[in-house]
């Protein structure tokens, strides 16, 4: 038994060492502090091949940038760059929907950032699914498991145990991703094919830039997703519909989270500019007929204004004169479209004067 335990531990340590050394050499497991420092000094892109950047990376980046204008939101705002807001120090603290943690995640980022560097203005990009009770993350939070999870996270010991467990699970999933990876990571271990931190940054020239914005790979920018007819959209909604499930109410917990975020901003005298970005014309034509989408637009804007913020509803692409050519897919706009939004926001991005 002792020999078995010893051999298991030894072999396990060898396996872990192999994976961890590979991650380190590829830049995938560099500490966020080191990544931020390298990005600020050398302007490198950061995109891991086997992990997702967590909100901590964005928090550290925002603190280091001491941004005057801070963007919060999902991947839909990640194309907004410093060059689009040239007169103010800008940092894009948006993160992908899977890592962000919805409205509560945005509030948590802001709460951490203001400990060291209070931005003057927050550009708050809001998506309809964040307020949809049928969005899987909201469903999970509302279910029994979500309640149990919240309860366990209130206790320090159980929180540490849970965090440890999930870190282990995610690490093992990353090892699995390395095993399954068909890209030439073994070659990258020996000779990096280009500048960048992390496998994807090196191989695909993609990733987060030093201002927190995201540079998409060329293949993504060049692809052209076909527009769908209303019937095709309705059929798509009948299938696995994560983003646009129909419902007659907004998620109360998400709205409460938004109110908490607004309260924090008001307390720290931060100007909040809420933005509801546009959808591609074919999708918008379908969404605008749906009750939830209409309710989302009015309720969220009312909440923002009631709590001292502003709301710019650009959901309709026509309101910005955009066409399908301004979108990479049905919900992600190109940089030109974002520049138009910034132009329309105008003085709203200036700091609060009262």
């Amino acid at each position: 038994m002792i020999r078995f335990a010893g051999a298991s531990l030894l072999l396990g340590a060898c396996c872990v060492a192999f994976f961890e050394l590979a991650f380190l050499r590829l830049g995938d497991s560099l500490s966020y502090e080191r990544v931020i420092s390298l990005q600020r000094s050398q302007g490198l892109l950061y995109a891991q091949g086997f992990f997702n950047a967590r909100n901590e990376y964005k928090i550290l980046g925002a603190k280091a940038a001491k941004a005057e204008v801070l963007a919060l939101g999902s991947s839909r705002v990640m194309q907004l760059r410093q060059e689009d807001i040239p007169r103010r120090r800008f940092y894009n603290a948006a993160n992908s929907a899977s890592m962000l943690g919805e409205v509560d995640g945005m509030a948590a980022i802001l709460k951490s950032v203001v400990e060291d560097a209070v931005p003057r203005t927050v550009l708050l990009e809001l998506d309809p699914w964040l307020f949809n009770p049928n969005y899987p993350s909201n469903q999970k939070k509302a279910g029994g498991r979500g309640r149990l999870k919240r309860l366990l996270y209130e206790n320090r010991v159980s929180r540490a145990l849970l965090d440890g467990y999930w870190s282990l699970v995610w690490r093992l999933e990353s090892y699995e991703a390395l095993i399954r990876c068909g890209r030439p990571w073994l070659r990258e271990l020996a000779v990096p094919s280009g500048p960048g931190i992390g496998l994807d940054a090196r191989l695909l020239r993609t990733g987060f830039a030093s201002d927190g914005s995201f540079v998409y790979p060329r293949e993504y920018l060049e692809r052209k997703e076909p527009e769908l007819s209303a019937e095709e959209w309705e059929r798509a909604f009948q299938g696995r519909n994560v983003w646009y499930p129909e419902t007659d109410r907004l998620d109360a917990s998400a709205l409460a989270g938004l109110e908490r975020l607004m309260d924090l901003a008001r307390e720290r005298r931060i100007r909040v500019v809420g933005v509801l970005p546009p959808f591609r014309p074919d999708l918008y034509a379908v969404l605008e007929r749906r009750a939830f989408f209409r309710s989302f637009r009015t309720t969220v804007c009312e909440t923002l204004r009631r709590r001292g913020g502003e709301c710019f509803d650009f959901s309709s692409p026509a309101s910005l004169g955009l066409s399908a050519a301004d979108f990479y897919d049905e919900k992600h706009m190109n940089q030109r479209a974002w520049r138009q939004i910034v132009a329309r926001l105008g003085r709203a991005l200036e700091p609060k004067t009262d």
Partner: protein
Amino acid sequence: MSFYSLKFLAFLSVALAAYWFAPARRRPALLLAFSYGFCLLVGGARAVQTLFAVGLLSYSFARAIDASSGRTRSAALFLGTLVLIVILGCFKYGGAFRGWLLPLGLSYYVFAALSYLIDVYLEKRPFEKDLPALLLHLAFFPKLIQGPIERAGDLLPQLKAENRFDSARAAEGGRLILAGLFKKFVIADRLSLLVAAVFDHVADHRGLVLLIAVYAFTWQIYCDFAGYTDIARGVAKLFGIELRPNFDRPFSSTSIQEFWRRWHISFSSWLRDYLFMPLIAALRDYGTAGIVAASMTTFAIAGVWHGLSWGFLVFGLLHGVYMAGSVLTLKARDRFLRRRGWDGAALQWTRRLITFHMVAVSFAVFRCRSLSDALYLFTHLGGGAVQSAFGDVLSPIELAGLAAILLAGLYRMPFESFRRRNPALVDAALVNAVIFLGVKSDAPFIYFKF
């Protein structure tokens, strides 16, 4: 709750602790409670109701058989068999028409119940007066979902015996569980990535890719099912109970008869004892035609036991043809080989290869989503080079790993002797392979749905 979930680990830990800390005479009752609890957690209330109903019916009919004689005894057996088959048929095939879900493990415990009734009728074993013991025989949770299909004569005495904890047996159980997890996660689930990519879109591929997918599925289904059986047997050993092995290196078989003695042994021996042999006896006057009819009937039933689809039926019929052909040509083949003086290892390997390919063909039909897919597959096996996205499905590391396992399988003897000399090292390697190289997904066992 599957065998490889944390929930099952928690369930098993509680069950083991309760079982071994309880007084010996209370253990069967505890095991029965845990088995029904497992059935409830995995299959829901309806699965428990069906399991209990089958147990109660088996007890009642066995009692009627035991208490009667002559034609009444035969009538009781006939009625009992009919009722159990109707229950199985309604759920198994009614699902295709009415959308009923198959209660957990029904196909397996109904077969166990049928063999019990027939054994009582034939006086191979006495009627079991202890109802909870019979219920436990059918419901014992390690074998509930996918077998092995145990005979009452083997399992019932063990369940009723006052077991004592045996650390050597428990260690053996742990090793079996480890071997099962390795087969499932490291081999079967890894192969399933390639198999699904090809078999779910057969018409997108041709040539070597199809051929490799056929081999891959043959090994996938073996490792998946044998992996499950190892885990089931390992878990049973932790309770001090021996379940029969279901596989004995089936791909080393040199004939189809031998293959069925080594593949899904509990099911194939059930078919042999309770279907094939009675059929052969009934059709003995018809000579060769009787053998062919018995083979075809037995294997057709084996095929549709998996479900109501043409693929399963053709799988069964193919094996019926193989078996009948094998039996009928045995003497002629032996004469032919003797005349040419072919013998020895080369001949054995040739026979193994031929048998393996015959089996692989049948499993390809089994896996194809339709008969037209199967037809496409067998008409596009030629064509040479790898043309489709084979390289995109499995990474170089996965391919190298599978090749290493294949080599270890081929050079089994040196590996076995190494294992005997260094058991701790091999077990440690298996643990780490499962943790680091196992596929981390929730792929169910293939035979779960049957």
